[in-house]
């Protein structure tokens, strides 16, 4: 095993995903500090060359590329053999990917193949001497857990938007194509796919999120939040109460049993701030809460708050943003 980092990259429509940019640029920065090497693993079929250039711009030049038409519909069964081959070849101590749907699926079995430790949903990485320490929150954000490692191999999924993008010196990528045998899946067969309406960014990569809770009384009132989100180019999320009431699909649930998000700004509307919800937004950079009860616990977590009725405050906010953004 070498002192090096392998980043498993995600891309979409010929663009590197933001979470991958963060991890690549951060790894490249660590590499400079600690003398480690950084590699990227990319999979796909006839992918746009821009993806490789973007990896180079993050400061990472050595790319392992798995090319196969089966990688267009990736799943664990298809990807594990390719990634295991890359890891065996570049022998990294650390393997990173985003705490994204595919990252969360891939890494536990991957770590098990190598009988290795894994840290899930990392929000910060510290360099200590020449090794790394991984920080995450546990018990609904009430405790911070710091995982230190010396020499063993470690896999980690890193929470999108938590570590930020660094500006590194660009390098020219050199691509090594891995032509591993990929068998069509026999155990796990994707029979049918329905594409969702993708007018908004997925929650885990959104920079701004407008989030609604129990304070919204009727399903026809959600347009208030949709209008605000529209003006800000924000994604929409909801609390468990809204999801359980059947108003919105479960994929939009934010909180401990839903998604953890760390946008730059989150505006919570009519949300009291139960611990299970707060655990899902605690790493958001700026939390703005709108609630009519000034004793609501959300105001203990929020950075800014308006004590008022969301039915009046949200439209006023929409109008004001429209005005200053000239929309």
């Amino acid at each position, binding site marked *: 095993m070498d002192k090096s980092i392998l980043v498993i990259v995600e891309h979409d429509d010929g663009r590197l995903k933001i979470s991958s940019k963060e991890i690549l640029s951060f790894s490249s920065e660590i590499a400079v500090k600690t003398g480690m090497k950084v590699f990227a693993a990319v999979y796909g079929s006839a992918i746009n060359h821009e993806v490789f250039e973007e990896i180079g711009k993050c400061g990472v030049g050595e790319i392992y590329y798995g090319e196969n038409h089966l990688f267009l519909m990736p799943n664990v*069964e298809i990807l594990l053999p390719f990634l295991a081959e890359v890891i065996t070849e570049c022998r990294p101590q650390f393997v990173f990917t985003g705490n994204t749907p595919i990252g969360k699926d891939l890494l536990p079995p991957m770590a098990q193949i190598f009988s290795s430790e894994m840290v899930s949903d990392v929000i910060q990485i510290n360099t200590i001497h020449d090794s790394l320490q991984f920080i995450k929150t*546990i018990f609904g954000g*009430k405790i*911070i857990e710091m*995982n230190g490692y010396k020499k063993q191999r470690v896999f980690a999924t890193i929470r999108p938007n938590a570590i930020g993008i660094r500006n590194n010196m660009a390098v020219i990528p050199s691509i090594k194509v891995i032509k591993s045998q990929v068998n069509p899946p026999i155990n*796990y067969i994707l*029979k049918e796919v329905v594409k969702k309406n993708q007018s908004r960014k997925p929650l885990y990569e959104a920079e701004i999120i407008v989030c609604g809770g129990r304070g919204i009384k009727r399903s026809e009132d959600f347009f208030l939040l949709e209008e605000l989100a529209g003006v800000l180019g924000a994604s929409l999320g909801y609390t468990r109460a809204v999801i359980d009431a059947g108003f919105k699909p479960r994929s939009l649930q934010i909180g401990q049993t839903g998604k953890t998000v760390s946008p*730059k700004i989150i505006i919570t509307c009519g949300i009291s701030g139960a611990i299970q919800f707060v655990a899902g937004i605690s790493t958001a950079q700026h939390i703005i809460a709108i609630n009519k009860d000034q004793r609501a616990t959300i105001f203990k977590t929020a950075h800014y708050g308006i004590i008022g009725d969301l039915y009046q405050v949200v439209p006023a906010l929409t109008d004001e*943003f429209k005005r200053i953004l000239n929309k």
Partner: protein
Amino acid sequence: MKILVLMKEIIDTECRIRLDSNHNIDEEDIKYIFNPSDEHALEEALRIKETVGGEVIIYAIARQASTPSFKYLLAKGADRVFIIPSNESNPVLMSQMIGNAVYNESGDFDLILAGVMGIDRNNGQIPGRLSIILDIPLVTMVEKIDLVKDRMICYREAETQLEMIEVRLPAVITVQRGINKLRYPTANSLIKNNESKIIYLSNQLSITHEKANIKYAYPKTRPPVKLFDGQEPDNAVRELIKALIQDKIL
């Protein structure tokens, strides 16, 4: 059909959680609950058993003191509970313990169901690791399942698409809490003496594994919130945006 359900007892995150003088988690006065999505995995297993027959067997790594809460699961209709007594929280070691127990006690299983993730430590590693240890396929975050002969049709919501997946059994499937509504046991089943159905297994492991050096701390306290009175919404909104601009957020 022989269905195994992985259930984890977790610290209730509603509790006040403190660190002791050695900076470890202070377990005094702490309440334990079953991980919510694991309870939905059990519910789904019971529903499959009601349709096609078979057995529902729970596997759990738990404290010795937890027998009463497992009796509650038996009252719901589970047939047996295997407990591996341990307070281990390392996913590598936990998966190996469960893998060994399953191999020894229920080698001929058809399906393993589990919740999508433990909400105590947000690891979500055990099902994926177990799929490698037992060499069976894995389907995660499932919202609906239908059994068709020796295969399971799983409906899951990925980030950009809804997927229908056909998976060959035996398999590990993790479920989200939206998959079903939990049942309550009847009063009669609760008073039944079914302690003999709770079986304690050995927690011996033959592997050596180097764990992380773990330290705990409290999160930094947050600065106090900047509040604006929304009696006059337009005014409050303007004040808020002014503050956001001043603080260089906009």
